[in-house]
Every structure is written in structure tokens, then in C-alpha cells.
């Protein structure tokens, strides 16, 4: 049975890799093949959810790795596989033959495969591997239209921001080994202090980065540079969802540290509030949806912080369906009408009825209107939150109603004289069958998933996730949040109130600029300074040593070599002079020899007498 655990990610991974290797030759069959692989993956996901496979395998010495499907993973693999299939189907129509389809579908399949491994990994090594591959795929997909430097910049920002968070996971893995002698996720809460706290800190940073929570949210705004189907998958069941999933997975660890749960809960709640305000202020449909993703993921993160696994997971599933649907709708509008500017989209929903209706239903669900899904799932999360967090979460919910209805108003407002098509690209004026097919299904899930809160369903749902005993929402809470949502929705829909859109909120609180000024530029400046240092000072010192060596050689040759040489020369000269002197007595005449011998004899006698 463990074969299913391998086959589930292997199918999309292998098909995706083959498409990437084949390149443009496979452009023709890529959509068909990808949809088939998506269908197969969904089948395997269903099988995995039923069979609950479990594998362990050796990876690093003494640190066994594994993949397993438990209740939480079962929900996630079904969500991921379903969303992936929906998006692949849409993309089969949306990504035209002019684009590099083999590359697109290949990357999408590997992207989905990485998420499937992420949600089934039982240890930090396998998790981190899949987690980072997912980041790289999102880079390649955001920068899919790489001819455009700006889109590549956006891809770089997305990858580097999420990888900055990922450093937390690298660090956490080391601390896990120090604290538990294993990388197993289940063992983490049992790590000794302070390793337990360090592991928690690393995981929290990585998860907040991946899920685009404060202060990392800006990368998700840049991620809009990719094709619409990429956004649909990235914002629903992969990438951003991975951070929320990981926090839900390790919530026992967050709980045991004491501080981590609180920190995570506040990070999520504040993101829901702040990014809700950002979403309200947006004028671009995809930017609005991106900010709303941060905000809605904030509720899942809040859930992990306060220990509402059932609520957080329900929110994840409902949001995945809704956000996938909304991005597909936005993508259909963009392809058909060539614009995503909210004020240019007037009448869009009327021109494409099915897209308009399903988009409207999705937005109503996102608004938290009763009896639709997110109204319920958000309240299950908030049911576990203490009062201050509850209040912040409720405010976030109100903002959700405002921005959601703003979208509905924009696309359902009748076309007027000022509405222009094709402000960003040439539209096709056409939405095909493949694009439409997934929309009603996603809308149905978005509408109906609220049933998890029904008394007969909530219990089994909690048991499935191993979260029995968690609080469910009270009737009062449901009425309060539902009533507020309806009220705000009505006010916005009436168009009597001008919605404030301060520049600071429109620009995502300048988070991206802050990261650029405070981190990216100083690091680059430091790099340049060090490069200068390396070239001038360090290498300069080496060159100086070499130059010093040459100088010493010169000095030696002038100052030492000459005198030494001179000494030798001088010695030679003296010897020569002596020789000349010595030649003098050699006259060859016997009488001079005799005289010399006589003188020598006198000297000898003299010496003998003196010494004697």
C-alpha cells in the first residue's frame, strides 16, 4: 500500500519533468498530458486519503525520512490535487499555443508534486526539500514571461523573500537534531529547551515567509506578474497554503513553547486586518485578490496559533476553492477583455455570464456572507480565539466583506462610456469551455463547504483531523459575524459610501520598498565594499609582497651583490699584485740568487739567535 505514497507525488513529478526535458517539441500534447496527469493525481489522492499509506526510507545517516497520509494530510492532498486539476484544465484553454506550453505545464505539475510531498512529509528534511522546490517552481512560473525584465524582477523578489524565510527551516532542522536526535515532526515538541524554542522560531519564520504574512506580504503582490493560472494555484492550494499547513501541523510544538502560539496567532490576526485594509484600497483586481489571500491565510495562521486545527483546515479548504475560482475568473476576464483594472471591468460579468455568476458567488463566499463557506470556517477559527484576537479577527472579516463586494460591484456594474477594454493586453473576447468547466464545481465547494459546522459534521471533521474537543462557534458568534458581513456588504453595494483608499494601503504599506531599502540595498552596498576590499586591500597585500620581493631582489643585486663581488675582485687583484712582486726576484742571474740566499741566511741566523 505504501506504493501510493510514492506514486502520488511521482506521477505529476515525472510527467512534469518529462515535459520540461522535451521542451517546445511537446507544446502540442502538453495540455492534454498535464490534464491527464492531474486526473491521475486526483485519483491517487483519493486512494491515499482512503488507504492512508505510510513510508519511511533512509536518507541521511541515522535520520530516517518518510511520507505518510494522516487525517490532515488526507484533506490537504485532496485539496491540492483538486485545485491542481481545476487550474490545469483552465490553463489548457487559457495558455495559448504561442506560449511555451510544455514549460508551463511541466512547471505546474512539478509545483503541485512539491506541494503534495510537503503535506505528506513526516520529517524536516523531506519537508524542506519539497518546500524549496516549490519556491523554485513559483520563481520559474512568476517569471514565465521572462522577456520582460520587470516580471523577472518580481520572480526574484518572490524567490528571495521566501528563501529568506526558508533559512528558518534550515536552522530548525539543525536545532531539531540537537534537541531530539531526529528530524521527525512528531518528535519536535519533546525537544529539550532551548532547542525546542529555536526550532519553533525557525519554523515560524519559514511559515510566515511562505504564507506571505506580515512582514513578508509584499512578495505576493509581485507574484502577480505570472500568468493567471499560476496565481490561481499559488494562492489556493500550494505555496501560501504551505506555510499555514506547516503551522497547523506543528501546533503542538507551538503550544508547548508558550510564546510561539501567541506570536503566530497575533501575526495571523494582524495580517488579516492590515492586508484586509490593503485589499480594500486596491484598484487592480489581481492585486486586490493577492492582498485578500494574505488576509485570509491570516485566519489559518491565527487558527494554528490558538490551536484550532479543525477551523484552520476548514478555512484552508474553503479558501482554496474560493480563491482558485476567483483567480480563474479574473484570468478569464483578463484574457478575454485585456484588463484587470477594476474600473475598466464594468460589465465584464454581464458579457460572460457563467464566469460572472460563479465569480460573484465566490466573492460572496469570500465576503463571509451567510450561509456560505467562509462565514462558517472563519467563525470556527475565531471560536478558539481569546477576546482581543477575536476582535481583531472580526474586524478582518468586516474588511473582507468590503473588498469582496467591491469586486462584485465592479464586474457587475453595467458597462459605461468610460469603460475601456485592452488596457493591458489584447483581449480575445472569448472564454472557452475548458476555462469554464472548473468554475461551477469550485463555486459549489465554495458555497457548500460551510456544512462542516453543522452539528453532525463538525464532530467527525474534528476527529478526522485529530482535533476532538476544540470549540465550535456559538450561535451568537455566527449571528454577529454574519450580521456584520451583511451590513457592510449592503453599505458597499449601495455605493453610497466612498471607500477610503489611502496611498499607504494602496502601496501595501510600503513593505516592499522597506525591504529593498533596509535589506537588499545595504547588502549590495556591503558586497561592493567587500569586493573593493578584496581587490585593493587583500589582493593588494599579496601584490605588495610580490613587489617587495622584486624590490628586495634589486637591492640585493646592487648593495650586496656588488660589494661581495668587489671583495672577490679585490682579492684577485691583490694576489695578482703580489705575484708581480714575487716575479721580481726571479731574474735568472746566479749572483742575484746568491745575494738573496746570503740575506736569507743572515735573517735565519738572526731569528735563531733571538729565539734561542
Amino acid at each position, binding site marked *: 500500500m505504501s506504493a501510493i505514497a510514492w506514486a502520488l507525488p511521482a506521477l505529476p513529478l515525472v510527467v512534469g519533468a518529462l515535459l520540461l526535458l522535451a521542451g*517546445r517539441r511537446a507544446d502540442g500534447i502538453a495540455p492534454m498530458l498535464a490534464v491527464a496527469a492531474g486526473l491521475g493525481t486526483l485519483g491517487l489522492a483519493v486512494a491515499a486519503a482512503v488507504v492512508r499509506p505510510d513510508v519511511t526510507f533512509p536518507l*541521511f*545517516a541515522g*535520520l530516517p525520512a518518510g511520507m505518510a497520509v494522516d487525517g490532515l494530510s488526507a484533506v490537504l492532498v485532496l485539496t491540492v490535487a483538486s485545485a491542481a486539476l481545476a487550474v490545469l484544465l483552465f490553463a489548457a484553454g487559457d495558455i495559448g499555443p504561442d506560449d511555451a506550453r510544455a514549460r508551463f505545464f511541466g512547471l505546474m505539475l512539478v509545483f503541485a508534486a512539491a506541494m503534495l510531498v510537503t503535506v505528506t512529509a513526516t520529517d524536516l528534511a523531506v519537508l*524542506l526539500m519539497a518546500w524549496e522546490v516549490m519556491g523554485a517552481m513559483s520563481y520559474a512560473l512568476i517569471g514565465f514571461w521572462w*522577456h520582460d525584465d520587470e516580471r523577472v524582477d518580481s520572480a526574484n523578489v518572490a524567490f*528571495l523573500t521566501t528563501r529568506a524565510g526558508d533559512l528558518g527551516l534550515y536552522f530548525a532542522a*539543525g536545532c531539531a537534531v540537537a534537541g531530539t536526535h531526529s528530524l521527525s515532526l512528531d518528535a519536535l515538541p519533546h525537544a529539550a529547551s532551548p532547542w525546542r524554542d529555536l526550532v519553533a522560531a525557525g519554523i515560524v519564520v519559514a511559515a510566515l515567509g511562505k504564507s506571505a504574512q506580515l512582514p513578508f506580504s509584499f512578495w505576493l503582490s509581485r507574484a502577480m506578474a505570472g500568468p493567471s493560472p499560476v496565481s490561481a494555484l499559488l494562492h489556493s492550494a500550494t505555496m501560501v497554503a504551505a506555510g499555514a499547513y506547516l503551522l497547523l501541523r506543528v501546533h503542538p510544538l507551538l503550544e508547548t513553547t508558550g510564546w510561539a502560539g501567541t506570536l503566530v496567532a497575533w501575526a495571523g490576526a494582524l495580517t488579516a486586518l492590515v492586508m484586509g485594509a490593503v485589499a480594500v484600497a486596491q484598484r487592480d483586481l489581481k492585486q486586490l485578490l493577492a492582498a485578500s489571500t494574505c488576509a485570509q491565510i491570516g485566519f489559518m495562521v491565527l487558527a494554528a496559533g490558538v490551536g484550532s486545527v479543525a477551523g484552520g483546515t476548514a478555512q484552508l479548504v474553503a479558501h482554496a476553492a474560493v480563491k482558485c475560482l476567483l483567480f480563474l475568473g479574473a484570468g478569464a476576464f483578463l484574457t478575454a477583455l485585456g484588463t484587470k483594472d477594476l474600473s475598466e471591468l464594468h460589465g465584464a460579468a454581464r458579457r460572460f455570464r457563467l464566469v460572472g455568476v460563479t465569480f460573484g458567488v465566490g466573492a460572496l463566499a469570500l465576503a463571509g456572507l451567510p450561509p456560505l463557506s467562509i462565514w462558517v470556517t472563519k467563525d470556527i477559527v475565531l471560536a478558539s480565539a481569546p477576546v482581543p484576537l477575536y476582535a481583531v479577527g472580526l474586524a478582518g472579516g468586516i474588511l473582507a466583506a468590503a473588498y469582496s463586494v467591491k469586486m462584485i460591484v465592479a464586474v457587475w456594474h453595467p458597462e459605461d462610456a468610460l469603460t475601456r477594454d485592452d488596457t493591458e493586453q489584447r483581449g480575445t473576447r472569448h472564454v472557452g469551455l475548458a476555462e469554464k468547466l472548473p468554475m461551477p464545481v469550485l463555486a459549489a465547494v465554495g458555497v457548500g463547504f460551510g456544512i462542516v459546522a453543522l452539528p453532525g459534521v463538525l464532530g467527525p471533521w474534528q476527529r478526522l483531523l485529530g482535533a476532538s474537543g476544540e470549540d465550535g462557534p456559538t450561535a451568537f458568534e455566527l449571528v454577529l459575524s454574519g450580521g456584520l458581513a451583511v451590513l457592510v456588504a449592503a453599505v458597499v453595494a449601495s455605493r453610497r459610501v466612498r471607500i477610503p483608499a489611502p496611498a499607504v494601503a494602496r502601496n501595501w504599506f510600503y513593505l516592499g520598498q522597506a525591504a529593498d531599502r533596509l535589506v537588499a540595498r545595504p547588502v549590495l552596498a556591503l*558586497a561592493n565594499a567587500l569586493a573593493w576590499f578584496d581587490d585593493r586591500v587583500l589582493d593588494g597585500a599579496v601584490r605588495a609582497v610580490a613587489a617587495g620581493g622584486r624590490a628586495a631582489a634589486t637591492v640585493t643585486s646592487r648593495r650586496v651583490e656588488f660589494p661581495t663581488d668587489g671583495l672577490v675582485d679585490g682579492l684577485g687583484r691583490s694576489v695578482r699584485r703580489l705575484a708581480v712582486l714575487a716575479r721580481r726576484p726571479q731574474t735568472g742571474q746566479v749572483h742575484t740568487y746568491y745575494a738573496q740566499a746570503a740575506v736569507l741566511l743572515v735573517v735565519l741566523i738572526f731569528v735563531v739567535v733571538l729565539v734561542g
Partner: protein
Amino acid sequence: MTVLSLVIFLPLVAALALYLFRLGDRASVWTWIVASAADLAIVSALWIGYDGPGIGYETNARWIPSVRAGYHLGVDGLSLPLLALTALLFLCCAVYSLRQTRRVRTFAALFLFLETVSLGLFAALDLLLFFVFFDLSIVAMYFVIAGWGHGERLRSALRFFLYTFFGSLALLLGFIGLYLGSSPKTFDMVELTRNPPLADKPGLAGLVLLAIVVGLAVKTPTVPFHTWLPPAHTDAPAAGSAILAGVLLKMGTYGFVRIAMPMLPDAWREYAWVIVIVGVVSVVYGALVALAQRNLKRLIAYTSVNHMGYIVLAVGAAGLAGDEAARRLAVTGAVTQMVSHGLLTGALFLLCGVLYERTSSYDMDEYGGVARVAPVFAGLLAVASFGSLGLPGLSGFIAEFQIFTGVIGAGTTGAAIAGGISVLGVLITAALFLRLLQRVLLGEPGTLTAKVTDVGAAERVAIAPMLALAVVIGVAPRFLLDLIEPVSSAVIALVAR
């Protein structure tokens, strides 16, 4: 004639044959290819036939009996991966050199000689034999850069020669220290490992370690002894750079694990902190300086400083206190990194050569949009870059993850801080490789883009196998780790004495 001697001297024999039979250009390269392929086949057979742990395929013949230096060869889990890497890289460079046109026979002969030298070094079990190969590698590489380089090749070659020769002199001094400290006096590495010299003279052992570490640090290279590397790489021919980075740098890191750690365990533990700090500085400094480069080849040269820094960090941490299993993991990661860096950086330098051959420029700002004109080249460069920045699924991650987890997992505060700082290297290398990809491959075309054509068949056949192997190690690393792990255990046990 033993099988290891055959492996080592087969390329040299082939080199002599080039002259003996006065082979032409094409025939010379093909001889080189066949000899390297045969060597790779034999090394693979040795790998399959090796049943460790311990030394396999050992030869020990008399060489210079007066100083008890022998012709002692053998392989274990540390040397086998490096022998295989060496054989593969030389084969890839041979195939790549099918496009070489200048003085081809001499070029091939020089590389075959260099292959013998490199294989000999990784199989040597005698310090003098090791030193001879160590020194000859410098000589051969000097001629490769000076003879077939470009730019300021003579200057860079001379600087490379003098700097690394200085390093090898320091190393020789250290080896003589080990010899004099041993009793009975010997240059035999196995005996020196069994009975570490200078165990009772910590001061002297420290000085000997200093000499050896400086010698190896120049070769590796680590900060601050790295400044010979960027000019040498920039001006070397592509195949020369690939061998320099892929094989010659490993001689330094190999020396740490083979010689410095097991032969001077007390001194190693005593000064482990210095090694760790040098490693951390190399990681961060190398990455940051690489980030600032505009010259493609200089950039990759500096990433080598970063990647070698991880290895130095790991072997330093192996000498610290802390959990033994974690430190074993770090050493396994270090050896894996040697292989991984050889594959990925070797491929990166050959890819640099592809560009240079077409445009004669390494200035990244003159490119852009190359993916449009050379899609296969773009794919290969992207895979190599992501491998080098440590993306899971490629060998770099397998190495670096083990190093980080091992160092931090050792469980001491200092090691956790050192590991925590080093993790930053992964982010900086990500930034610099994304910038590289953007400047060269993506975006608007630059002034030289039109000159670039896609990789030819020989280039493809040369580069793809390295990357394929990096993927295999990244996805299914057990075949490699099974070989390395016993060595890691042994090294940790030896250092702990």
C-alpha cells in the same frame, strides 16, 4: 602492476603515445577521450568491487627506504568518490575539447599528465608521494593557463604558480614536521594515522598543524588566501578552469580530512575554533564578494570560496565538542560537497567557456535574453545555477543540508551560532545566481546576445552528464552516502583520540 597503478598511469602512457606515434589533432583528442573513458570505467569497477570499510586495492612498494617513504597506494570511501569525480571531469573536459584548435596535441598531453597527477594524489598513502603529486599539479596547471589562457594569462599563471607553490612549501614543511615527530620515523600515511606523531609535544604539533593548514588553505582556497583564484580562473581556458575548480581545489579539502585531522588530532581539537571561523568567514565573505562581480567567471570563482567555506566549517566543527552523530553528518556533508562542487562548478565553468568562445567576453552586462537564442544552453545554465545555490533535488543541497544540520546539531552554542551565520550563505548565493540568470539569460537582449549560438553536440555531451549526476545525487544520494559514511565515522573517531 596493480590496478590502482594502472588507473593512475594509464593517462600518462596515453600522453606519451601521443608523441610516440606523432598523432594529429583529432586523433590526440580522441586518444584523450578513450584513455579517460577507460579510466572512468576502471574506477567505476573499483567502486563496485570495493567492500569497505578500510583500505582497498592496496599497493606498498619500496621507493626511498632511507626515509621510509614508500610507493603506497590505496582507496577508501573518501578517495573513491574523488577518483571517480576526477575521471569523470577529465572525460567531460576531453569531450569538450573536441572544439579545441590551438596546439591540440600538447594540450591533450598536458591534461593527461594532469589526470595522472590528480588520480595519483587521491590514491596516495604516503606523504612524499602525495607531495610530489600535489606539486606537479601546480606545474601542469601553470602551463595550461600560460599556454592556452586568454587575457593576462602569463601574469595570472605566474601568480597562480608562485602563490600555490608557496602553499606547497608550507605543506612540505608540515610533512617534514610530521616525519620528524613520528617514531619510528616514516612518511607513511597509514602509520602516521595509526600512531599520531607529536602527541606529547602540543606546541610543536600546533606549529606543524599551522604549516599544513596554511598549505592546504592556499590550495582550497579559504579567506584570506584566495586571491590567486579569481585571476587564475578568469584567464584560464574553460577546461582548465573546470579541472582547477573541480579537481585541484579538492586536493586542499581532501588534505584536511586525510592528513590534518587524523594525524594531528589533539592539535586539531585545540584549534578547531580557528578552522570553524575561517570556514564561516569564507562562506559569507565569498558569497558577498561574488554578489558584487560583473565578470561571469570571477563570480563563479568567488562562489567556490563560499562552497569550500562550507567544507572548512564542517571539518572544523568535527573537532569541536558535541554530539558525535551530528559531527559525523557534517563530515559526510563535507565530502559530499567536494563531489557536488566538482560537478556543478565544473559544469558552470564549461558553460562560461561556451559563451566566451562565441563572444570573447565575460561581462554579464553585455548579455541578456540569451535564452531566446540558445535555449539548451539556458536550460543547462539554469540547472547548474540552481544546483550551485543549493536547490533540493540537486547534489548541493544534499551536501549543505548535512553540513548545516551536522554543525548546528552538534548541540553547542558556538556551533549553533557558526551554523546559523553560515546558513546566510545560502540566501546570498541564491541572490547572486538569480542576478546571473537575469543578466545573462533573461530580459532584453544585450549587445553580445546576437553572437551567441546554442551549445553544439560536443558541448552538450560534455556538460549534461555532470548535471545529470548532480541530479542523481540530489534525488537518490544513498549510493554515495553509503560509501562516505564509514569514513566519516572513522575520521570522527580518529579526531576524538
